[in-house]
């Protein structure tokens, strides 16, 4: 390295060589700014709502509950034209509130931030609607107070963690005359709507549905935590019904706060059971337990298996549902089996996104293929082998043809259901999951946990589903 190692007086050469790489830092700054501008433009473009008609009524909304689910709903709402975020409310001011407010500002919304929803309702007089994405045990008080304040409400499922709370929500909706949509978002999913209206009702492709099977397999995960710098002061946690930060972050597992996986996950799918079968269940038996987690920190069951009896207009049916916390293989789906065909469907666009199997004894589906209700059949490999001369066991049924439901959803999963809510506010649609409908699902789902504790089948009376 020559003279560089020797101490000497700093001369002009040293200064020039010393500063010689400084321009690289300037170049980096320039490149970074260009990259940031490009990324922001792409993000705004991706989240930009479709072109809004000039006469579209702008709806002023507030987000109440800015946690993970609140963020999911916000991301979907940013793509819906004609919405203006006026306020965001969350008790986790140290993290959730800042995160969502800052993300909304990037999309040119100027929401006011609150940690007290009553203060928000008092001050935000121009609000048209409130999106409630708080923990289940707050759904009822939040929705009821918002309805009483004259706001339309979109409330996440489960409607409430208690039937008393759910009843109060239905009553408040009726008294206020405002809209109350519950977030069973499959009810607005175009694939589920296509299957319900076209395949089950127009074409009766499944024939008589006799059995239903559904599941949601989920992998075990560590409890959610929070770094010290984001911890909510104990007084505020207590004020809002939480014993500590662990319970606040993992409320879904605590009795009196959430309902466990059967409510978080099963609720979506059991809602579809009743919708597609056209009936509420008459009985449920269930088994469940904490097979993996410590019951001290996970009071609700991590594994649940439930069997419902239905008296459908077409005859009796049984529906099995399983949710387990082990690993996520085979994911989640609902499988409806009729005497003429099977429908395997899920919300996912990747797995089980709508497959149909026609029993060989059922009438041909050519008409429905021609009408675009289902795709042309694809012979299954097992059938091809049978046809190739191999001798099939006489106990085996001939493999059915496989068709596909030709409907996909390119938007975020929650977007159509939110869009339906805002269309209803504008008087252009009817709610796909109004409070009375969701109440019936809450009755069916919350009873599962009761049946596990009772260790015996529990019957439903028709009046249980009425408010």
């Amino acid at each position, binding site marked *: *390295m020559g003279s*560089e190692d020797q*101490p*000497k007086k*700093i001369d002009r050469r*040293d200064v020039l*060589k*010393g500063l010689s*790489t400084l321009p690289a830092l300037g170049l980096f700054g320039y490149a970074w700014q260009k990259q940031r501008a490009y990324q922001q433009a792409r993000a705004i473009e991706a989240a930009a709502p479709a072109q809004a008609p000039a006469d579209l009524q702008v709806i002023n909304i507030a987000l109440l509950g800015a946690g993970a689910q609140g963020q999911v709903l916000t991301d979907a709402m940013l793509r819906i034209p004609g919405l203006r975020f006026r306020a965001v409310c969350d008790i986790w001011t140290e993290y959730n509130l800042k*995160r969502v407010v800052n993300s909304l500002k990037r999309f040119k919304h100027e929401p006011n931030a609150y940690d007290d929803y009553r203060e928000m309702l008092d001050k935000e007089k121009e609000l048209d609607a409130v999106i409630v994405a708080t923990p289940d045990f707050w759904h009822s008080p939040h929705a009821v107070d918002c309805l009483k304040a004259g706001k339309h409400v979109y409330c996440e499922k489960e409607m409430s963690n208690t039937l008393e709370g759910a009843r109060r929500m239905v009553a408040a909706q009726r008294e206020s005359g405002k809209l109350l949509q519950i977030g069973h978002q499959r009810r607005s999913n175009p694939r589920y709507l296509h299957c319900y209206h076209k395949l089950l009702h127009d074409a009766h492709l499944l024939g008589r549905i006799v059995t239903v099977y559904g599941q949601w397999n989920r992998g075990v995960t560590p409890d959610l935590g929070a770094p010290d710098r984001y911890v909510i002061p104990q007084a505020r946690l207590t004020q809002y019904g939480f014993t500590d930060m662990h319970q606040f972050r993992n409320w879904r597992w605590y009795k009196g706060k959430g309902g466990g996986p059967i409510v978080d996950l099963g609720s979506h799918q059991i809602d579809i059971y009743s919708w597609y079968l056209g009936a509420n269940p008459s009985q449920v038996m269930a088994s469940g337990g904490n097979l993996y987690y410590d019951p001290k920190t996970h009071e609700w069951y991590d594994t649940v298996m439930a069997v419902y009896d239905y008296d459908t207009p077409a005859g009796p049916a049984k529906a099995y549902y399983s949710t387990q916390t082990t690993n996520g293989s085979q994911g989640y789906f609902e499988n409806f089996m009729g005497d003429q065909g099977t429908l395997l469907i899920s919300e996912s666009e990747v797995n089980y996104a709508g497959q149909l199997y026609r029993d060989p004894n059922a009438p041909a589906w050519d008409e429905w293929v021609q009408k675009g209700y289902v795709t042309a059949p694809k012979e299954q490999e097992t059938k091809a082998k049978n046809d190739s001369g191999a001798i099939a066991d006489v106990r085996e049924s001939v493999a059915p043809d496989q068709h596909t439901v030709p409907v996909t959803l390119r938007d975020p999963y929650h977007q159509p259901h939110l869009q339906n809510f805002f269309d209803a506010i504008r008087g252009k649609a009817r709610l796909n999951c109004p409070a009375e409908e969701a109440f019936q699902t809450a009755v069916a789902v919350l009873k599962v946990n009761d049946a596990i504790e009772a260790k015996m089948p529990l019957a439903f009376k028709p009046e249980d589903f009425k408010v």
Partner: protein
Amino acid sequence: MEDMKLSRSAMIAITVLRVVVGWHFLYEGVAKLTSASWSAAGYMKVSRGPFAAFFHWIASQPQLLDKANLITSYGLTIIGVLLILGLFTRVAAVGGIALVLLFYLCNPPFVGYFYSIPSEGSYLIVNKNLVEVCALAVILLTRSGLFAGLDRIVRGLVFRRVHPARIAAA
């Protein structure tokens, strides 16, 4: 070896190497700092190899994970700036080696390991992290900041304060 001198062109090449490695560090750092959702948790959760249990444990501890996120994002940024400027180059190189070695040991491309994380290349034992560690070792040992970087000025200023007589005699 002490007497071995590197040519001027070799030192220029090493300085360029230092700047591009610094650039990479700096962008990795600011990209993490400006991402609202970035966390090292995902990288640690898929860890395998002899240190997998250690990284899994960090990923499961919110306090530790928060500190790991801060150290990683700020560490990469600061080291990147120092390498580009040639300021405290040896300290920056040592810090960079320590950080990148941790990245390497978290998900080492050892025989028989198949990662599901998308990767743009194929690696066996040696991957980009290990190559960058070696590059930093070269930067560390050749003191390129004294050839072209702020270290050259800093050293001159320090010497003037510590050895004013020698400077005056030079």
